[in-house]
């Protein structure tokens, strides 16, 4: 069994046979033409025909992938209307007495180079569009007609797929597609995602050596391709495929329904995400908002701290993508256990009890202010809330609020827009915070209970230590009692309370959470719909 790997464009498992998709190579030879006028007229005919094809493709694509994704074909049509593009072709025909195919090919190369030399990755992708539309012209000039070839459902393997080829793939016959080349920014990738076809790109040349009819498994979730899979892999993947299909089904039946018990009690279901790439997953799974945006993705894997603009751009993008749904951004929650050497954190015996999170932030106000400024600037672009981790005292809360006031004053002085009423909440994850939640509730707008850390602090047990598993009861009565106390204290002070730790997704506790009045559960995107299903099946006693 051979395992190939590429970049995953769209998830899903496909099991089937390879079909090598080869585009017929267009023969481009320079032929001397005597009647250049006639040749230019022939080109014009081909151009008109290409426009008709693109118009039809647009209509076809619009139905399959929506107007915005089908737009690419209008862009192609505009390229064929571009004065510079057309005059270049006419010029070559006239001055070199060249055939139209040659003129188009040379022009295509020149214009494609314009894009492939650009700094912006998206712009570099447009070179492929120039080639795609030029190929279309040449095919028409050459009198080529597209041939079929695919009879039974198969996994399409190709060197690369142009947008027009991707969109014309028959969903019935295509189980997945795999390309040697390709990039995540390409329209092909965008179209694949919208068409819900498992796809892996950038696998490299080895994939082209696969033979038609060879058995493969495509794992669109991991980007791996198993060639001639052994029995065990086949069984595992079949299982994975079944689970993926079940999740798909769940999506279909539960999407759009309320998170409401049989007796009408409602609760918000939000998503926990760790990077902007997860927003799509959150929306696809019908999240009501983002209950926890872990901001560490901005800080990890770098040589220096992210500046305000970098952070602002990321927060703003997420807020805009969520289109008015709440996004709760958690400020920096890093400790000695995470990879951020530039912070210069000393190695600690007990990082969980150490110099981390808000402690670093309050100790390094410049670092903290940069993040707060970025969050406040982004607040003008969506519905953003702010949440601080690891709180243990009122004093911390008051200091944070003072820094926030400074940030707001500075932004006002600089005439930078921001939402003056960004909700400010804290994570309840330390025993101190849980015990004093009645006091803290007077100073903040909401609580979010971080059950992972709360459990380990309350039970005095390291959750990463496998030996302690027999001792750590995730439903420990001490924990549940604290959660209930926190909820009561919150509501007595008219603030809302949510849970963003792993316990939120525990369906054996859903009824308990509902009964104590938890307002929001924030979970991993793929767990939202199963949770909704659970909620809708519950009838709260009394």
């Amino acid at each position, binding site marked *: 069994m051979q395992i190939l790997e590429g970049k995953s464009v769209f998830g899903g498992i496909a099991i089937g046979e390879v079909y090598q998709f080869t585009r017929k190579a267009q023969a481009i030879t320079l032929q001397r033409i005597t009647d250049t006028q006639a040749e230019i007229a022939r080109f014009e005919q081909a151009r008109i025909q290409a426009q008709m094809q693109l118009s039809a493709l647009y209509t076809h694509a619009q139905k399959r992938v929506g107007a915005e994704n089908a737009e690419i074909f209008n862009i192609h049509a505009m390229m064929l209307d571009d004065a510079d593009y057309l005059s270049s072709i006419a010029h070559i025909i006239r001055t070199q007495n060249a055939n139209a195919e040659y003129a188009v090919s040379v022009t295509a190369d020149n214009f494609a180079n314009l894009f492939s030399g650009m700094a912006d990755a998206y712009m570099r992708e447009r070179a492929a569009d120039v080639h795609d539309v030029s190929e279309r012209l040449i095919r028409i000039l050459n009198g080529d007609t597209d041939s079929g070839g695919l009879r039974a459902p198969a996994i399409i393997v190709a060197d690369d797929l142009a947008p027009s080829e991707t969109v014309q793939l028959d969903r019935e016959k295509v189980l997945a597609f795999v390309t040697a080349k390709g990039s995540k920014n390409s329209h092909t990738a965008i179209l694949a995602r919208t068409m819900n076809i498992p796809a892996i790109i950038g696998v490299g040349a080895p994939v082209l050596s696969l033979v038609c009819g060879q058995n493969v498994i495509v794992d669109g979730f991991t980007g791996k391709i198993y060639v001639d899979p052994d029995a065990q892999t086949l069984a595992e993947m079949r299982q994975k495929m079944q689970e993926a299909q079940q999740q798909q089904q769940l999506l279909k039946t539960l999407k759009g329904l309320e998170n409401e018990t049989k007796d009408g009690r409602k609760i918000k279901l939000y998503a926990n995400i760790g990077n902007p790439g997860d927003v799509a997953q959150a929306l696809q799974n019908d999240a009501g908002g983002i209950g926890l945006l872990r901001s560490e993705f901005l800080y990890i894997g770098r040589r220096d701290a992210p500046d305000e603009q970098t952070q602002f*751009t990321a927060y703003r993008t997420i807020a805009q993508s969520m289109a008015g749904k709440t996004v709760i951004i958690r400020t920096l929650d890093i400790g000695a256990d995470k990879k951020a050497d530039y912070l210069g954190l000393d190695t600690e015996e007990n990082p969980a009890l150490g110099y981390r999170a808000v402690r670093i932030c309050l100790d390094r106000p410049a670092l903290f202010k940069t993040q707060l400024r970025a969050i406040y600037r982004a607040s003008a672009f969506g519905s953003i809330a702010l949440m601080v981790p690891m709180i243990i005292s009122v004093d911390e809360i008051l200091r944070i609020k003072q820094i926030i006031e400074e940030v707001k004053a500075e932004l006002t002085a600089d005439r930078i827009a921001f939402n003056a009423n960004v909700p400010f909440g804290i994570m309840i994850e330390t025993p101190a915070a849980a015990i004093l939640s009645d006091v803290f509730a007077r100073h903040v707008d909401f609580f979010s209970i971080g059950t992972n850390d709360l459990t380990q602090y309350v039970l005095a047990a390291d959750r990463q230590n496998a030996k302690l598993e027999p001792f750590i009861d995730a439903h420990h009565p001490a924990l549940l009692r604290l959660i209930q106390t926190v909820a009561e204290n919150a509501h007595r002070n008219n603030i809302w309370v949510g849970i963003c730790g792993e316990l939120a997704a525990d369906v054996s506790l859903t009824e308990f959470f509902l009964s104590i009045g938890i307002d929001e559960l924030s979970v991993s995107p793929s767990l939202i719909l199963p949770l909704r299903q659970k909620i809708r099946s519950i009838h709260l006693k009394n």
Partner: protein
Amino acid sequence: MNEFTYTLCHDTGIHARPAGLIVNEAKKYSCKITLCVGEKCADAKGLFGIMGLAAKGGDTVHVTCEGADAAEACNALKTLFSENL
């Protein structure tokens, strides 16, 4: 001659789709419409020209319209920019 300047809000600058919108709109008018970003200028009626400007978020675009319907053209484009860019 009519003109206006506009600072691009989105990081993506003038991508294929907004470039297409500009071309579509510009072609409705008979006047000459030019887009300039810094030293580079392009005819607003040509897709390649506009995309070739490689205008990014934060860049300032200078739009000039010369001809009979210049005022109308500039107004329409100003609206298009503020709504899409």
